[in-house]
């Protein structure tokens, strides 16, 4: 579960990115965050995976108040949050397998188990036959599936995605959304930030609309 109470975010330079945001995303919910460019979608997600700290307000994730969390606890909370980006953020000097295995290596899982889990995960995203490829040899859609596999392989409670389909064509977009829906059905909370109105209109899901750093009331 994700809860925000009167959250403000001001970057050092520039005006407020987020102002007085209060919202709650229930466990197992699927929600879109939308709004025009610069509205604060990415900032909101960054607060949720602790890449940024709020200037004011409280954020509670999986029961932990992250504004009171010790710095050393941050990595452990992150292990419960999978993150996917528009630009994939893959390591191009590693294989597909190694990219996905990274999430498990850092938590000290034994190699044998890692092998099994990564293979299963790659099978789920349909890339098990390319596990020894470099991501450079994959299409954009395939690369995004690798990054989704990396985000999901340690079975996080929450999946956050920032414009995950921004670089993908229609068909690949639907593939990726299908993966999100599947994992949501299994109980993972999914939050997808996108400015793509047509994408949102395809799904009847909760929509959180931001404008100038504030939540807009539903029309």
């Amino acid at each position, binding site marked *: 579960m994700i809860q925000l109470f009167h959250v403000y975010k001001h970057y050092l330079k520039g005006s407020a990115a987020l102002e007085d945001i209060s919202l709650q995303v229930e466990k197992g919910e699927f929600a879109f965050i939308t709004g025009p460019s610069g509205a604060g979608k990415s900032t909101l997600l960054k607060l949720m995976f602790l890449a940024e700290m709020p200037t004011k307000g409280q954020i509670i994730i999986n029961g932990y108040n992250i504004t009171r969390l010790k710095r050393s606890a941050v*990595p452990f909370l*992150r292990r419960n949050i999978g*993150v996917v980006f528009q630009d994939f953020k893959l390591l191009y000097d590693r294989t597909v397998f190694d990219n996905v295995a990274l999430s498990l290596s*850092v938590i000290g899982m034994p190699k044998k188990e890692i092998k099994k889990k990564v293979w299963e995960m790659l099978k789920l995203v349909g890339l098990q036959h390319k596990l020894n490829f470099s991501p450079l040899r994959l299409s954009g859609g395939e690369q995004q599936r690798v990054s989704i596999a990396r985000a999901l392989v340690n079975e996080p409670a929450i999946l956050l995605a920032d414009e995950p389909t921004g670089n993908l064509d229609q068909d690949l977009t639907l593939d990726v959304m299908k993966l999100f829906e599947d994992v949501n059905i299994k109980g993972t909370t999914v939050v997808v930030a996108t400015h793509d109105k047509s994408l949102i209109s395809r799904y009847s899901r909760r929509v959180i609309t931001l404008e100038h750093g504030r939540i807009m009331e539903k029309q």
Partner: protein
Amino acid sequence: MLIIKRISYFMTTMAKGIASNLYLNVVTIITIAVAFLILNIFFVIYRNVNAVLEGWQGRIKIIAYLQDGVSSQQVSAIEGQLKKYGNIKGVRFYSKQDALSEFRRELKGQAAILSGVSQNILPAYLVVMVRDRVIRNGTVGKLADSLRGIQGIADVQYGQGVTERFSEMLVMVKMLGIGIGGFILFAILIIVSNTIRMSIFSRKDEIEILKLVGATNMFIELPFLLEGVTQVLCGTGLSIALLYLVYRFFLYRLHHAFGSLIVNAHIVFLSGGTIGTILVAAAMLGFVGAFVSAGKFIRHND
């Protein structure tokens, strides 16, 4: 523990890091080797000067010639006075008669020289054994001078010049070693920390992703810390090897220039203990240098 379980991960990540920045790493290692070589040369010089002085220890004595006609009472008074000196180990009295027989003994085989001497013109004297520390800190001269002022002592002699020069040299080499050593160690710290900084920058994306998937700072930093330790250890190892070559070459040239004469002049290399200490210090230096950069560029921007 995770760190033990993943030791091969950390080692390979470290090795990859070095391989991907090979040029920078080689330059760093060579720079460290040269810097350490200078420091090590000081160690060798110090050790040898020290060894020479050590050879002198126990052999250095001050001879205090007594005025003619001092009574045995006066002699024991002087002896008592000398024994109160903290820097004096012992005193031995040689009477005029003893002096003559000593002299005879030393001239053994050439006793004819003395055949014409009818009267014992040799003065009585005291042999003053000094403590080792007097030689180390170069105060033999001072001690001798203070003996000169004692009533009944006519003259004082010791290995003037030679011991002082060596003591002075020892002190000088020590000071220079500390000064230059401190500077070099500091320079190495800066070099390592800078190389690790570059290494961290070149792997920024990887660090970002590692943080994203929940790696602890320790997990992210360890390969860089190992890289720092490896750099300084390699540099130091190389410098010791270089020093050994220089040392062998030097000995070889000496041998050729002076022949067997030099066989007696025993020039020693760094002791095993010193090499061990240097390597441990080097590893610590590399760790600290890398730790500083990791703190600034990995831990800091959470």
